[in-house]
């Protein structure tokens, strides 16, 4: 059998195989005994009933490419590696502990390196994923512009003219919730309880620091209420999850190094995250940078400090400070994949909700099935994402909930759109939004249970938000 190495691509018997860095690890692949136990948990298999859209099928294809039985650039392979939501449900249920996430990410990296993409796609990826997310200031400016657009009346005019539809941006536009008034800028705000017991570093994240900045503030207040002094360290950037999911590993590694640098000043403090997708990515920096001698150890240590906000609050010494203000509402909880599957956190958010007086939690069917958001999946794989969104909205609305609670910005946007499309009136909130409400929100600060200090450095400041 002829083995030729050409342009970094190993060819066996005329089929192109993996080449260069970031190949799907054959040992990880071998752990799959193709038992099929993961099939029913996989959203794409649930919708299609077809084996290639199942975790087992995708793993088999990855193995086949490695074994020289399938061409790396076979369209079917490309299709499946990207139809996968990377929701990691398969990983959470696999009895043999197959580490699926890193495998599909490596497969995508292989495709990205070796596959020619049409120019418009290349540009969109460079701008959308690499440029916009490379610098938090760009994101804040973009979101400020969006807020201006939403509130100035321009949105109504533009929509009436059908412009978003013509630009193919209608989905993105419809998904956007009302944007928080002020972005949260690292270094500008700090929350200190009267008697701090510990300090934590809040990870700002692209969406939570802008569109959902008020939710991030709510998280900080809730943490402060429970004895933590909360800082938002300067210099932090996007977590890199979108880049990892898109197979752009070098971009992701760049961001990871920047974040590790930014958070090292805060010592061993926990890095608290309010976006499940970012939390999962941060917890995997150890894996992402394992081949970088300067950063491997530091990445491991950084990842070990990362906590989802519900995880952090679920573990506060002496238990959670009991919230006292009733929030009389029926809610249901939608598990973000990257919380439930990638981080295996399912009990804490429910415990936090149960601690809120007056709140009634009704479980929905299939609460851990992906809602179809999955990073930017809902923008690039519209049909499947919509189908998952409709299924989710149906299950959520069937509980009679007035509020759907989740813990990830992507899910929040997807849920919002899906519920609207289903004609439902339920709103979508983060766990900490409700908890903050039960603690008395900003008013509690004025009552002295913690103080918010706004006079911080301006080193990371943005152009003033447009309003």
């Amino acid at each position, binding site marked *: 059998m002829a083995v030729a190495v050409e342009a970094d691509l190993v060819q066996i018997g005329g089929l192109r195989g993996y080449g260069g860095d970031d190949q799907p690890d054959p040992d990880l692949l071998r752990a799959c*005994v193709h*038992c*099929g136990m993961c099939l029913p948990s996989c959203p794409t298999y649930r919708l299609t009933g*077809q*084996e290639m859209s*199942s975790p087992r*099928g995708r793993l088999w*294809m990855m193995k086949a490419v490695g074994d020289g039985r*399938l061409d790396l650039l*076979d369209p079917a392979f490309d299709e499946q590696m990207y139809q996968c939501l990377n929701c990691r449900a398969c990983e959470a249920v696999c009895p043999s502990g197959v580490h699926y996430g890193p495998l599909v990410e490596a497969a995508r990296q292989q495709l990205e390196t070796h596959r020619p993409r049409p120019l418009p796609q290349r540009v969109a990826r460079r701008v959308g994923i690499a440029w916009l997310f490379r610098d938090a200031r760009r994101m804040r400016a973009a979101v400020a512009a969006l807020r201006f657009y939403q509130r100035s009346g321009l949105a109504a005019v533009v929509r009436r003219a059908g412009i978003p539809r013509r630009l193919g941006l209608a989905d993105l536009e419809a998904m956007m919730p009302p944007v928080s008034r002020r972005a949260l800028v690292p270094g500008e705000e700090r929350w200190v309880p009267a008697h701090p017991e510990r300090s934590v570093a809040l990870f700002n994240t692209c969406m939570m620091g802008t569109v959902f900045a008020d939710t991030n503030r709510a998280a900080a207040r809730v943490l402060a209420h429970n004895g933590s002094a909360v800082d938002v360290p300067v210099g932090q950037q996007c977590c890199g999850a979108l880049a990892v999911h898109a197979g752009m590993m070098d971009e992701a590694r760049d961001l990871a190094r920047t974040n590790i640098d930014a958070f090292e000043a805060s010592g061993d403090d926990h890095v608290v995250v309010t976006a499940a997708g970012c939390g999962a990515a941060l917890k995997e920096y150890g894996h992402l940078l394992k081949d970088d001698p300067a950063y491997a150890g530091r990445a491991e240590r950084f990842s070990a400090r990362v906590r989802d906000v519900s995880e952090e609050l679920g573990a506060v010494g002496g238990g959670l400070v009991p919230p006292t203000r009733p929030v009389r509402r029926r809610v249901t909880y939608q598990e973000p994949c990257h919380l439930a599957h990638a981080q295996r956190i399912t009990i804490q958010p429910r415990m936090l909700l149960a601690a809120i007086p007056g709140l009634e939690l009704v479980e929905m069917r299939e609460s851990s099935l992906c809602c179809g958001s999955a990073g930017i999946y809902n923008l690039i794989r519209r049909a499947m994402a919509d189908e998952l969104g409709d299924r989710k909205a149906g299950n959520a609305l069937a509980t009679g909930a007035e509020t759907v609670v989740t813990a990830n910005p992507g899910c929040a946007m997807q849920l919002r759109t899906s519920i609207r499309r289903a004609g439902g009136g339920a709103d979508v909130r983060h766990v900490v939004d409700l908890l903050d409400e039960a603690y008395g929100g900003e008013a509690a600060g004025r009552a002295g249970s913690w103080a918010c200090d706004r006079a911080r450095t301006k080193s990371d400041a943005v152009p003033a938000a447009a309003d």
Partner: protein
Amino acid sequence: MDQTTLVARLEAVVGPTGVFHRPADLLVYEYDGSVDGAVDTARPAAVVLPTSAEQVAAVVRIANEAELPVVARGAGTGLSGGAVAQRGGIIVSLSRMDRILDVDRDDRTALVEPGVINLELSEHTLPGGHFFAPDPSSQKACTIGGNVAENAGGPHCLKYGVTTNHVLGLEVVLPDGRIVWLGGRAAHTPGYDLTAALVGSEGMLGIVTKALVRLTPAPEATLVLLAAFGDIDGASQAVSSVIAAGVLPAALEMMDALTIQAVEPAYHAGYPLDAGAVLLIELDGATDEVRETGEEVAALCAAAGATAVRAATAKAERDLLWKGRKMALAAMGRLAPNYYLHDTVVPRSKLPITLRRVGEVAREFDIPIANVFHAGDGNLHPLMLFDRRERGAVERVLAASNELLHFCVSPEIGGALSGEHGIGTEKRDHITLVYTADDLAAMAGVKNAFDPRLTFNPEKLFPKGYMCGEVRALRAQALAQKHGIYAF
């Protein structure tokens, strides 16, 4: 019929999204849940995903015209290669026929399509106080159609019986493309019990398109005991004394030290890591009765040398204990990249001697063997762990397995070849160990009555070469009649 015409004809029946034929798509239909090496992979010519019995029937008729074999597929969790298209042809995947059509609480029956997942049927009916009793360890993924075809069993079949005891009627597409109903709601149907003939037929007699199954009332109380022993001998002893005392547990399962090592780190079910073996014993029934029997069984275990006995009544705790057991097989990937397992059944009284022999074989052939099995009905699953990249490993495993099989079915032990996983391609060449030529001929007669052209799931069950040799005469006769020899 050339490939293009075939695909076009199939698409006309199920639509373009219901047919797969690109090589890369067919690649993922070349396996099922069975073990690498023990079953060869094979690619079909096309895969069809129908949504109704009529579509299935139309596909079968097209296959007949094209003279292609037809292989039914559920979730592909089978362990004997049943869903692998050994001679190519068309795979009919029932995964899109997954509706629960009707639940009749008064009659305690459910009418389901074949692609319904076993556990989801129980989850659907449990709020009303019923469940579907057959509970293969794969129940989270496997389908009712696959259960019927393999006559699947599970831990709770000790008390409740296997799949065949829970199937009342079947809608079936026959190999000539006709749709028939076998059995029905009535407790007794006159004439041949053809429903029973279909159960366990491994997709070789017909394709199930609807199943009318029995639902079982959920018991008032359930108790799970976890008993730890220093060694397997002690655990086997306890099994014998529990059964001898006349107790009928809902389930009685054994796991040895190696299995515990694979499962405990993954599920933290609470199996003691230092035990030589553990028993999981589930008791169910009326609350008082369960409590009393629980005490009796705990005492019997202690007398047999149990080092610890723990009781779980809360559902979450019971589920966790079971999760470890049910996931054991699939968790073996944590210990070794490959495993090979047996499914032999031995009389319960022969358990201790058989398990001792398993230990000897492991040493003689230098292969780690994990034991996790349905102790209550003597259904063994010795799992041989290996790495097929290691030279000679596969040969050693096959030799060891041959040794064990012969031991289990020897007159001294009097065991059977397969408890629940079916014969498929995997054990077809061993079937002559348990059946005489006349036994096989009787079975071939049934096959021939249903499928004279031998198109449904060829190369299964019967030893290699058998159907073409022995049944050639019958086949010729059938071909002459062209449209089959059905008399009903």
